[in-house]
């Protein structure tokens, strides 16, 4: 459901042994590359978690703060104009989303509640930040933007399939629906920067 969309096991069962080994090798290489590039693991477990509105608010704020933190690393480490512009946009837009979410929960008198999803987001983000901080120059730029593509794909998927459907409060649902096109635009922007970097 989330961002590691590698071939399903059934594909291997129907193939001859040689092809199967090749496939496994390719998949293994892809997984290694993916882990190297993305540094991330799925936001959520295979089973869709059931979240209350205070928990959804917490996930929303955490997910945005995580991307601001990545952007701040990029703003310190990168010298690439496209990366810097992208990171500035991420920092500003995601802060805008947090401001909207905080204003909403205050108005609704709701306290965001820490939960398994927001904890996992933070734990994964720490690992990613360590890996990003260990890189420099073009390696950093590629790693940062690769992670941004993967992260935004994951967050778009989570907002679409978990947070919006499970939101009970109409205003919270409305805010998430407003945020979704912003996230999709960020994803398109990240993919464009990534494509231009590899030219």
């Amino acid at each position, binding site marked *: 459901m989330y961002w590691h969309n590698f071939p399903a096991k059934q594909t291997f069962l129907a193939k001859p042994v040689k092809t199967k080994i090749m496939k496994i090798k390719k998949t293994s290489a892809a997984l290694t590359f993916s882990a190297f590039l993305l540094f991330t693991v799925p936001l959520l477990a295979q089973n869709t978690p059931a979240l209350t509105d205070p928990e959804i608010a917490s996930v929303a704020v955490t997910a945005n703060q995580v991307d601001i933190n990545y952007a701040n690393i990029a703003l310190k480490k990168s010298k690439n104009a496209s990366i810097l512009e992208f990171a500035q*946009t991420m920092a*500003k*837009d995601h802060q*805008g*989303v947090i401001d*909207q979410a905080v204003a909403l929960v205050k108005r609704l008198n709701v306290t965001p509640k820490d939960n398994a999803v927001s904890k996992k987001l933070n734990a994964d983000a720490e690992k990613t930040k360590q890996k990003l901080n260990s890189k420099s120059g073009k390696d950093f730029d590629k790693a940062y933007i690769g992670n941004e593509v993967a992260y935004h794909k994951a967050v778009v998927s989570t907002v679409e399939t978990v947070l919006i459907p499970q939101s009970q409060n109409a205003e919270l649902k409305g805010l998430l629906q*407003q945020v979704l*096109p*912003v996230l*999709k*635009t*960020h994803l*398109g*922007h990240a993919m*464009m920067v990534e494509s231009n970097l590899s030219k």
Partner: protein
Amino acid sequence: MNIKRSIAGLMFLGIMLTACNASTEKTIPIKHVVEIKQMLFQPAELQVHTGDTIEWINHDFVDHDITEEKNHEWSSGRLTNGQSWKYVIKKTTSYFCSIHVVMKGKIIITGE
């Protein structure tokens, strides 16, 4: 003969005046509105006459700008939520948001 000539003259004059009026109506500049919402310029493509004014209004909660795409000849600067910006279009132009570079729009000049 004189009456016929006078009628023909009046008819000619009437045609000329009508043509002039029609021409004048076409050149009166008007204002068009492009709304920025859900991270899109709406409409993304707009047909206008030379000298028409375009007003962009930002309805999103994130900032946007309107920037000429090819050479960045003009730009609105940042528009926050609720802010608008006007520009008189003189030629067919592609533009984009330089903050969210995948957001694009086009103004097409269809006549004087």
